[in-house]
């Protein structure tokens, strides 16, 4: 757009950098430094956004909602969180909550988990029995696969036997004992950074 504007103002031949072939064929002593102050200034002269100016076709007094290009303030309570008798509930304009393509945004997780509630008490007894009797075969993940639920649910329903916990702890220690200094420090730093997420 800038080039179009500037090309209207002056003949094309006055701007040799726009025409690489022409500028190349020009003699070396006539070539000028492209990044002169004036040219940079001209290129940066961008028209303000249309929403900043007065709208010509609308002659009603209304609030222009133009959110700043920054993360929203923490102190701004979302409309949904306002109590029902708060006056700000009615004041919020359509523009502020205009998330027109909310459903079109991709979710962070692959698919939102829908709950099925299909397991019966007998199934849960079965899960507990399997995990207690043969914890090496029936891990949380395998149980979740078999009963078509999440590993989280398996963890909520039953707990691993102390022997299994002990074995798992030893496995973890064995793995960690092979870490060198760099890897150990990196893991520790990662843990510290993670703790800082909550006090953001």
């Amino acid at each position: 757009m800038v080039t179009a504007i500037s090309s209207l103002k002056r003949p094309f031949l006055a701007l040799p950098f726009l025409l690489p072939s022409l500028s190349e064929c020009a003699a070396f002593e006539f070539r000028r430094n492209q990044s002169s102050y004036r040219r940079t200034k001209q290129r940066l002269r961008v028209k303000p956004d249309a929403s900043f100016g007065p709208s010509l076709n609308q002659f009603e007094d209304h609030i222009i909602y133009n959110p700043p290009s920054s993360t929203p303030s923490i102190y701004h309570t979302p409309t949904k969180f306002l109590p029902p008798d708060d006056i700000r509930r009615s004041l919020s304009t359509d523009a502020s909550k205009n998330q027109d393509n909310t459903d079109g945004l991709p979710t962070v997780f692959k698919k939102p988990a829908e709950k099925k509630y299909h397991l019966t008490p007998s199934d849960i007894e079965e899960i507990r029995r399997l995990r207690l009797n043969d914890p090496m075969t029936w891990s949380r993940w395998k149980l979740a696969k078999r009963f078509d639920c999440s590993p989280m649910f398996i963890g909520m329903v039953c707990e691993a036997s102390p022997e299994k916990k002990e074995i798992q702890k030893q496995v973890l220690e064995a793995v960690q004992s092979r870490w060198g200094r760099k890897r150990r420090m990196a893991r520790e730093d990662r843990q510290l950074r993670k703790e800082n997420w909550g006090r953001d």
Partner: protein
Amino acid sequence: MKRLQLLRWSSSALSPGFRTGSRLQRNVYAGLRHQSSASPALQAENESVTEEQPPGQPIRKLSPEEQRLHLPSPPIKAARESAKLAALHGRLYLPSRLPLETLARTLVDPSADPNPNFNNESLAILGHDLMTYYTSEHLLCTYPRLPLTVVFAAMFAYVGPKTLAAMTREWGVEYAAAPGGEVDPGLLQFKRMAPGTNLNTDTAISTTRPNPDRKSWRHSLSSRIVYDDEFGDITTESNTAVRGATPDQASASFVRAVMGAIYLHAGRPAAKRFFEQHFLSRHLNITELFNFSQPARDLSRLCAREDFEPPVARIISETGRKSRHPVFVVGIFSGKDKLGEGAGGSLMEARSKAAVAALKGWYLYSPLEVRVPSSTEENGAAPWKPVHVDLGEVIV
């Protein structure tokens, strides 16, 4: 308000008695105390009387300067002679109805003078209760949804001992090297702790808390409201008269005593004005007091409790996710409404920060017209209208 002992403070604070002869005599017989003066102004007059007296000498009539040396804290009439004290009175713009004598008394810590008629203990108890009352009503009415742990932290930030010690420094109050009758009454007087004293030997005040001797037992939040002090700590009592006090403890009791003295001499409106000008005007960013451990879980519990749609994390924008340092902007939506958003280097980080933002948006709700209960105490005040009371924080 806890620990309000009306009879005690009103009798001892409003009628400053004179030192009894028996107490002075006791001091004289117990042994003569010669201290180096911490006050340069009074040093010159005291120089003539600092020579040691042999112990076997019979008691003779002591000159006023000598009598001062045996007192644990400056006498009452010294308050009118101290330039420091008058300057402090002027610097704080204290009401003229608050006499210099009371201001001098607020500067005497119980560790310097154990006599309750001459130290600031009673004034400090009153001032402490007033300060915590005004602070807590301000916090609860301004941010009705604040979780209790954050209320405790905010109380600590406004009127905690560390803040009061900082205020003492900002008011330009200096510490006396050692307390004594010859010291300038404009200096904060307290007995210093010996180096290497163990600070954790404070004995807990007997409360009605069951099993107080079980230190390792978990103290639930509800029990901390009922049994513990306003910062969520176990109420302890240290024997400062014997062991001495830290500068922080002495400064805290001084500021509290000033508040109590203003209340007693100038009345409730003046005390409230003093509180608003010196305490509420301080800068505290409440958003920085939160520390969530599992924000996403808390948010989904909150939405389930309040009958909102379950929160869904959606990617609003991102820079190339295969690049060295990608940035994801994740928003948390409940139905059509956006609850919060956060940016982070990984999707989990961004989601976690967005959940923190949403939870803070819930907890930091503030009504438009905030009015505190103590505003109805004035004459001709509008009747009290109930404020917004929340269900409470999320319990997982």
